[in-house]
């Protein structure tokens, strides 16, 4: 969303010795979250004694006139379109004097906390025909730069530096603004005023990044916007134009499955967006809504993409657009062709907490489960906390669970805490940072991974001499919760407790596992963190008297047969 000017007005109060009121009509057309700015100037040494509710002082400038010119800038965020429901009144000390007031309203301004991007600058001049507003340095793109000046002598002013003049009625006030495309120094602004000096403030309003969330539901349930992820992409996620940085937008596809139907995951191409790291795409299942898997591939009302190849060079989901996040997604890819791909991500794309399942009963089929850096722009990608399995052709000659398309020694691809099972190659990680990954039942668990601990370590493989790294564990036997349930079992001795804590990872810090559970301090290798919880039960007798309650400490393990095990009483011998 871009900042935009809405309206402005000015008033002059004479003999305003006890205060002044700004009528609601000054802010006509206002909407919730608009930013109202009020700048006033008074001549004298007065102090403001009361400010209307919700208004905050932001900037101040004082000049050495006799008496002094004192400028104050206040701001307030509108809570509704009906605001204000009454006049706003400022009161001050001191004798009667002239007060000039200007009011401005802007839309599309940052909504969390202060609307201002950086420290303001001010100017004061007791004489002369120009006011030079010193430059400020913005920290984000698309800021609206606003200059508000009050001059001592009535008359018109001008400023060629600004794109827009908002107020210059020939009285004592002038307001200008413009949008600054990129973050950085603004340069100074020279305002030509009638002779006599004045005061002024230069400020920057930060643009609001609007998150446009739409619902993808193959069952077209209540609240749905699209019935497929492919259609969502064809509509550019209902964003303004698909150019997310230009319009300060984030596009989110919230995926649901209200009736049990799988989304068509065949040839889904996500390409025509323009993104940057702050203006990205997100495709996810919200854990709070109940449509996310439980760490195993689930049908029923769990959102999933499913695809079957129809030719060579087929793909499931190919997100060539950069800066896309897949979170909590299931993808089942059945293939009988070669040179195919289940999930490809463009530069800086990430897939996390997801399950990618390959099914192949044909020989010599080349297929990648997850391919990072698919656009080959050298920016890599991220695979975090995923379970990937089944990418192996019938003669076990091809198939890679997680692959990297970026060139050798790329330095920008991160594969962290993934569990890869039953693939021909588990992880192909040339040039990647490969940590805490578990490869079980793969012919070659870790292929082309760098053999230095800075790139590849703390991994575990069922193959001997496989995973590089001083702390990596090879020739291990892993024990999972079930046949297709790759949560670690309580009895696992191959991965449990052998991971590296990545809570303070320099690039991708995280603390939870594929199920969203806290990993604690000692991490397991792979997507799942084996967790044991305890509870204290209050057991009431038939009378239900709390005072007579008995207490019982119980525990349960996760996972067990794909879900939490039963609660059991902690023996008295255990602490």
């Amino acid at each position, binding site marked *: 969303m871009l900042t935009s000017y809405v309206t402005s007005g000015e008033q002059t109060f004479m003999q305003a010795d006890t205060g002044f009121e700004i009528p609601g009509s000054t802010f006509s057309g206002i909407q919730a979250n608009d930013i109202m700015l009020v700048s006033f100037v008074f001549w004298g040494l007065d102090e403001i004694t009361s400010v209307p509710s919700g208004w905050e002082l932001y900037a101040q400038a004082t000049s050495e006139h006799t008496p002094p010119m004192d400028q104050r800038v206040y701001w307030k965020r509108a809570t509704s379109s009906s605001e204000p429901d009454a006049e706003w009144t400022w009161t001050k000390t001191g004798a009667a004097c002239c007060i000039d007031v200007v009011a401005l309203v802007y839309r599309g301004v940052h909504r969390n906390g202060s609307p201002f991007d950086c420290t303001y600058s001010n100017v004061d001049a007791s004489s002369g025909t120009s006011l030079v507003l010193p430059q400020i340095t913005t920290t984000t793109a698309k800021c609206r730069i606003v200059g508000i000046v009050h001059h001592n002598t009535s008359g018109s002013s001008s400023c060629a530096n600004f794109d827009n003049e908002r107020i210059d009625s020939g009285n004592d006030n002038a307001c200008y603004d413009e949008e600054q495309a990129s973050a950085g120094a603004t340069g100074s602004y020279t305002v030509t005023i009638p002779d006599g000096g004045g005061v002024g403030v230069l400020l920057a309003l930060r643009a609001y990044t609007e998150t446009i969330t*739409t619902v993808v539901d193959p069952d077209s349930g209540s609240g749905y*916007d699209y019935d497929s992820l492919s*259609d969502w992409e064809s509509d550019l996620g209902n964003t303004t*134009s698909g150019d997310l940085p230009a319009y300060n937008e984030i596009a989110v596809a919230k995926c649901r499955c209200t009736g049990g139907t799988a989304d068509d995951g065949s*040839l889904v191409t996500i390409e*025509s967006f323009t993104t940057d790291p702050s203006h990205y795409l997100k495709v996810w299942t919200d854990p709070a809504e109940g449509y996310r898997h439980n760490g195993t591939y689930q049908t029923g009302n769990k959102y999933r993409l499913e695809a079957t190849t129809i030719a060579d060079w087929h793909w499931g989901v190919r997100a*060539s657009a950069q800066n896309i996040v897949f979170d909590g997604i299931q993808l089942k890819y059945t293939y009988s062709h070669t040179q195919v791909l289940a999930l490809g991500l463009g530069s800086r794309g990430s897939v996390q907490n997801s399950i990618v399942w390959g099914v192949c009963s044909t020989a010599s089929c080349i297929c990648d489960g997850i391919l990072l850096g698919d656009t080959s722009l050298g920016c890599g990608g991220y695979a975090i906390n995923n379970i990937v399995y089944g990418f192996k052709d019938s003669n076990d000659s091809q198939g890679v669970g997680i692959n990297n398309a970026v060139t050798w020694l790329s330095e920008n691809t991160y594969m962290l805490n993934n569990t890869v099972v039953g693939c021909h190659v588990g992880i192909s990680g040339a040039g990647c940072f490969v940590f805490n990954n578990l490869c079980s039942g793969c012919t070659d668990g870790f292929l082309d991974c760098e*053999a*230095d601990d800075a790139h590849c370590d703390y991994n575990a493989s069922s193959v001997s001499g496989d995973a590089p790294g001083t702390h990596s564990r090879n020739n291990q036997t892993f024990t999972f919760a079930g046949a297709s349930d790759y949560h670690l079992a309580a009895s696992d001795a191959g991965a449990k407790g052998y991971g590296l804590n990545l809570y303070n990872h320099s690039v991708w810090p995280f603390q939870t596992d594929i199920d969203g559970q806290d990993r604690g301090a000692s991490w397991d290798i792979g997507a799942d963190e084996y967790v044991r919880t305890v509870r204290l039960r209050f057991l009431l007798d038939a009378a239900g008297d709390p005072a007579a309650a008995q207490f019982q400490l119980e525990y349960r393990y996760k996972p067990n047969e794909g879900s939490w095990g039963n609660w059991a009483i902690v023996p008295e011998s255990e602490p």
Partner: protein
Amino acid sequence: MAQILFRLKDNVHPDPDKDRRGSYKKGYPVSIKPDGWYEGNPNWAQSAYADKTKWFVVEVTDATVEELQHYAGSWKDNFDYEIVEARPAQGQYDVRVFEQNASASGANAITQAKVESFLTKWGCTAISATTNSVAFTFSLWNAVRSDAFWEIPSVVLKGSFVLNGYTPATGVGNVTFTAIPEAFPNMDQAKITTMITRRIEERGGTIIGIDYPAFTFEIERSDILTRFRANVKRKGEGIYRRRQFVLPSAVVDTIVATGGFAQRTKAELLAEIRNGLSE
């Protein structure tokens, strides 16, 4: 019956290449829907599809979803190869690659610029182009020393190759790669050996002997040719246009003027919709 959801509003990407291959345009089929999809759902009216400035629907009265699915396909490259002349004794082939999905007027014809970088990475020489055709000489010996075959940039900086022998009858070459250990920082002899051995085997080679840092292996020409063909196809082929079929603007305008919904038979639709390959 089945229905086709069409795009009414142009999507635009500032990059013209991405715009052509990634953006939906007015008249492009988006997806194929089952009968009753259009306004048949009580929640449809509040969905994004209800915005008739973005979409319109054509119901095909005598078609199934499967019969219409091809209308929702992209216009993709489809290269093919022809060996113009083979010189097995030298391990060289004169090859012509051409585009099978060029349109009648030449849109999406193959050009030298489109494939030259891939061919160069494979050590191809004598690259030249004619209409919808690029010819070049493919050398097995150049290919087996190329960055593209090993997928390692500047592979010659990491070691040297010596051809010990080549048997034209079987197509098997015997090659020694001598690594430069300094080019593999932070790796000891065992790790370098493991990595290089794996990479040779993964590409179809068979290790004959290791006298570190020299690795001698045999490789059969079909392994090289297969990898070459796959690599050029994978790296060189792409989507030319987001949709191969498009409904003409005048037809779209007529449908929109009558409420954004129309019925057609398969034959009527076929008569109206344009196939990019025929243009």
